[in-house]
């Protein structure tokens, strides 16, 4: 039995990606927690930014990969691409949820509220709902091929919708609550920028590494399933011959 070409590549390179992620995250955490000065206005709380912003960036990156992968799947119909999309969706949902949670924790000391219907938070919530819908479709559809197609269609539609959602929510917010709570852009001094960049790169690498692992997981599950199916078939055939 052979392993898919893509999985072979993943096996070869995953160590490098994982190592890079570990290195970047270690350096990033060191810089973020110890090596950078506190912010002039926000003080120590600004350190939450170094975990929150990379999580959010990575979630968006993941969604872009999901939409691209879905289009690719509809074109090529290669199950391995579908495995990749399925893996990306679960991870993106995870990163989106964590970005929302860390955002809430950051919001409490800075805005003095856990939640506000601000444009970014709202569109991230909708994004999370779309991703959860995607994952639900994948679990309730029994036929693998159908699940893959439906999921791909959903992902692409959601990707087209995302900018429209963000735009409309932002517009609606400015209409109803003219900047009562504004997201004051943190003046990014070079001391704050370095850990942010390193953490962002680290998170993207971590995402890629987790993606490689999860794609393998889904692929191997399906491979074993197929093998079991083949054994079942052979069993039937031997019974038919006897």
């Amino acid at each position, binding site marked *: 039995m052979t392993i898919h070409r893509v999985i072979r590549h993943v096996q070869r390179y995953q160590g490098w990606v994982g190592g890079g992620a570990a290195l970047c995250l270690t350096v990033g955490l060191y810089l973020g927690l110890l090596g950078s000065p506190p912010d002039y206005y926000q003080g120590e709380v600004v350190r939450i930014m170094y975990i929150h912003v990379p999580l959010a960036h990575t979630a968006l990156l993941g969604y872009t990969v999901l939409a691209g992968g879905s289009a690719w799947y509809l074109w090529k119909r290669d199950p391995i691409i579908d495995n990749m999309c399925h893996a990306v969706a679960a991870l993106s949902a995870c990163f989106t949820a964590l970005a929302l949670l860390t955002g809430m924790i950051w919001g409490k000391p800075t805005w003095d509220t856990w939640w506000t219907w601000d444009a970014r938070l709202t569109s991230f919530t909708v994004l999370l709902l*779309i991703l959860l819908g995607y994952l639900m*479709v994948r679990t309730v559809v029994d036929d693998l091929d159908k699940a893959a197609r439906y999921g791909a269609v959903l992902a692409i539609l959601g990707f087209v919708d995302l900018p*429209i959602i963000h735009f409309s929510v932002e517009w609606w917010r400015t209409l109803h609550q003219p900047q009562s709570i504004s997201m004051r852009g943190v003046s990014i001094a070079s001391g704050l920028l370095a850990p942010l960049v390193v953490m962002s790169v680290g998170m993207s690498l971590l995402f890629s590494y987790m993606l490689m692992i999860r794609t393998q997981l889904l692929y191997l599950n399906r491979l074993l399933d197929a093998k079991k199916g083949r054994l079942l078939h052979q069993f039937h055939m031997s019974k038919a011959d006897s």
Partner: protein
Amino acid sequence: MTPFLKTIRWILWKDLVIELRCRETIASMVFFALIVILIFSFSFSMDQQAAHDVLAGMIWVAFAFTGMIGLGKSFSAELQNDCLEALQMAPVSRGTLYLGKVAANFAFMFVVEILLFPMFVILFNVDVVEDLSLLLVVFSLATAGLAAVGTLFAALTVHIRAREVMLPILLLPMVVPVMIAAVEATKGALNGDPLSLYRPWLELLAIFDVVFTIVSFWMFDFVMDA
């Protein structure tokens, strides 16, 4: 008439004839909406001014959920005697089937909205003296948006378990822009604001309609075709 338009017309004709014979979909949508109105009036004990303020929101909550019923039925009705299979084997492009179904769904939802709007106005004692034609434009644009995405998702959920639950779960997050724009524009039209104030919302609705009709038109291929 081109074969393309003919097919769309035939699908619309078929759905309308069946609906006229049974009156199942529209009747259930209207009754459901009446119950929603009833529950609204219990939940918020409103004077006329308060009702006026939240009327647009209530209207669109009711429309969205009744629309969900109509959309769900549009494809589950095709499951009797596996008629959906016959549609799938029809030698026309999937997009044609999609547009035919969108037309039928739009017709049902729009008729229900026209029936329900006066009830909202009467039951909540709201004075509506303003130009109703603009309101019709708002309704039709927003309904087109709901129907464009909803038809695709109805086709997508028709074969999966728990489709009655899955359709709103998938559809509602996607149509957030439609809901926002529809509520804002309806509010503007009901208040008799100058058009320039809520014109951007109408434009947003129009953009949404165009974008999602085109995208769904392409995507319907992958939903319907094995």
